């Protein structure tokens, strides 16, 4: 695991990893019990989200997709309002209209979340163009999957951002799956960086299950974007250890591959490091987990108490 820069506390990252896992588990359990809709969980990919988001600045803007819980929580979104959104309730970040798949929180700089896979890639250059023309300092971090990288928008977006010198940090979370299709059945190359190299921009990849490594790699790529005003591509190699969308029995998943990645669970890796470094004890870890669980339990309660929007809201906000 790479060096964590002193200003960021690994313990803080660990807590975020735990929070995301607890949040996703609440949905797994809630949906299994029929109390919530299923979602595309980020279980197994927590380090990718936490490492990348923590490398960004408050002024930076984030575009994400259907598998966004990690990005939102790491950015400081309230799990209660997120769960309310998942459940289609009035207190959701999008008034219950988004559901889990397109949660945006403009106040946190999480803008234009889309579940059209590849849509985030189409929108990112324009967001960056507005940043630049308004002389605003933040860069634009665009999170997308290996699946999105197969859409034509990947090519169009990278070409335009490179051509127009737009400050977009493309962060591809390559989790080896595109819904029910393995990356190998969809990509002519092993990695998205193989394609990205053609655009004349800095490309790099990183072990996505090592939160410190992701943090460092993202910092470095973000610094390149900030300094050059040009795009960069970072590929975060990780694995979707639960199914595509809850519930999913993963009957189609190669058991050995799954086992290999489960053995490198990002949360376990981080905890082991904290324990090894003496930054936390077993009992402190347990207490932290309990605190996180309590926070999520409160969030669930908040969301469940939130009412459904009224039918009059059906046609509000369609037009500005």
């Amino acid at each position, binding site marked *: 695991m790479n060096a964590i820069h002193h200003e960021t506390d690994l313990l803080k990252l660990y807590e975020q990893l735990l929070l995301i896992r607890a949040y996703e588990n609440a949905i797994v359990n809630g949906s299994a019990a029929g109390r919530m*809709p299923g979602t595309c969980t980020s279980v197994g990919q927590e380090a990718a989200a936490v490492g990348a988001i923590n490398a960004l600045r408050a002024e930076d803007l984030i575009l994400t997709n259907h598998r966004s819980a990690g990005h939102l929580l790491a950015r400081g979104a309230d799990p209660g309002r997120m769960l309310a959104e998942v459940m*289609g*309730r009035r207190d959701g970040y999008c008034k*219950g*209209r*988004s*559901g*889990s*798949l*397109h949660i945006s929180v403009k106040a946190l700089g999480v803008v234009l979340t*889309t*579940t*059209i*896979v*590849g*849509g985030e890639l189409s929108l990112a250059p324009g967001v960056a163009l507005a940043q630049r023309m308004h002389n605003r300092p933040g860069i634009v971090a665009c999170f997308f999957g290996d*699946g*999105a990288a*197969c*859409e*034509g928008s990947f090519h169009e977006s990278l070409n335009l951002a490179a051509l127009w010198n737009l400050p977009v940090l493309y962060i591809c979370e390559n989790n080896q799956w*595109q*819904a*029910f*299709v*393995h990356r190998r*059945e*969809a*990509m002519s190359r092993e990695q998205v960086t193989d394609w990205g190299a053609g655009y004349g921009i800095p490309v790099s990849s990183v072990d996505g299950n090592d939160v410190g490594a992701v943090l460092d790699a993202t910092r470095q790529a973000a610094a390149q974007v900030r300094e050059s005003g040009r795009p960069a591509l970072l590929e975060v190699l990780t694995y979707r250890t639960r199914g595509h969308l809850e519930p999913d029995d993963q009957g*189609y998943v190669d058991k050995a591959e799954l086992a290999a990645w489960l053995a490198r669970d990002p949360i376990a890796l981080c905890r082991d490091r904290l324990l090894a470094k003496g930054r936390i004890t077993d009992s402190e870890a347990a207490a932290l987990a309990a605190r996180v669980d309590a926070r999520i339990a409160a969030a669930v309660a908040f969301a469940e108490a939130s009412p*459904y*929007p009224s*039918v009059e*809201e*059906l*046609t509000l906000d*369609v037009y500005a």
Partner: protein
Amino acid sequence: MPTLTLHDAVGAALAEEMRRDGNVIAFGEGIATKRHELVTEFGALRVRNTPLAEGIIAGTAVGAAAGGLRPVADLLFAPFLCYAMDELVNSAGKLRYMSGGQFSFPLVALAMTGAGWGVGAQHNHNVEAWFVHSPGLKVVMPSTPADAKGLLKAAIRDDNPVVFLLDIGLLYQPGAVPDGELLIPLGQAHTVRHGKDVSLISYGKTVHHCLKAAETLAADGIDAEIVDLRSLKPLDEAAILASARKTGRVVIVHEANRRCGVGAEIAALIAEQAFNSLKAPIRRLGGPDAPVPASYPLEQATVPQADAIATAARALCRQLHA
């Protein structure tokens, strides 16, 4: 008669047609995973998963069809057809005509549509009218597993590109499907209930809402006729006009946005060609001009329900007696 879900009826149609004709192939984002039994029977070359890229999936279907195959391309959800519009509309729909008839495009583009899953407007957008408006395409949307099977088999055998829409709200509802060869010609509506007072014209899940409404109406002494269009293109104009002329009162019902929806076309047809038989205004019930929200109660509220249909029909029949 065996009972199948619409999802399984589609699987049965695919299997039967692939067995019958070696040119039938199927591909899409996950079809080989989700219908793995087809891979087992027909092999990994005829049933394939694809990259996540609707444009090239549809384009490959178009190119393969011109080359003599009969591809079925699964494009998942109707809003994703946005990424395949060029291939479906500009290529599949136009290149036969524009080439002076040199090519034909026997392909089926499958997509799920409609409410029932609560996942919001980027998965739920009923765009069948776009394809009805576009020349050279056929458009089908069944309301029962049996129709799905019979229409899909006919669509696969059709020499034209067919956009075949599956109402997601009906996908896992079981229904009786006759044994043996079942072929339902495209372009034939099905009068699922005969009646004399009011015509309810619909397709997809709202056919079932019409059936429920008809029961209520019957209790009020109103005898509703229900026409299930099944094919939106070709449209069975004769069946629509015959029913409108017979009852003189028409309620058109679908889930898609009313504005420029298929219901507009039907109302316009009737207002032009059965005008003299009309005893009351033509009513359209459809979705609002708004994206479909994920929130379950709001999503349900976008779909015309039996109550609203019965109310509309009753109002037309009152108008008669006034």
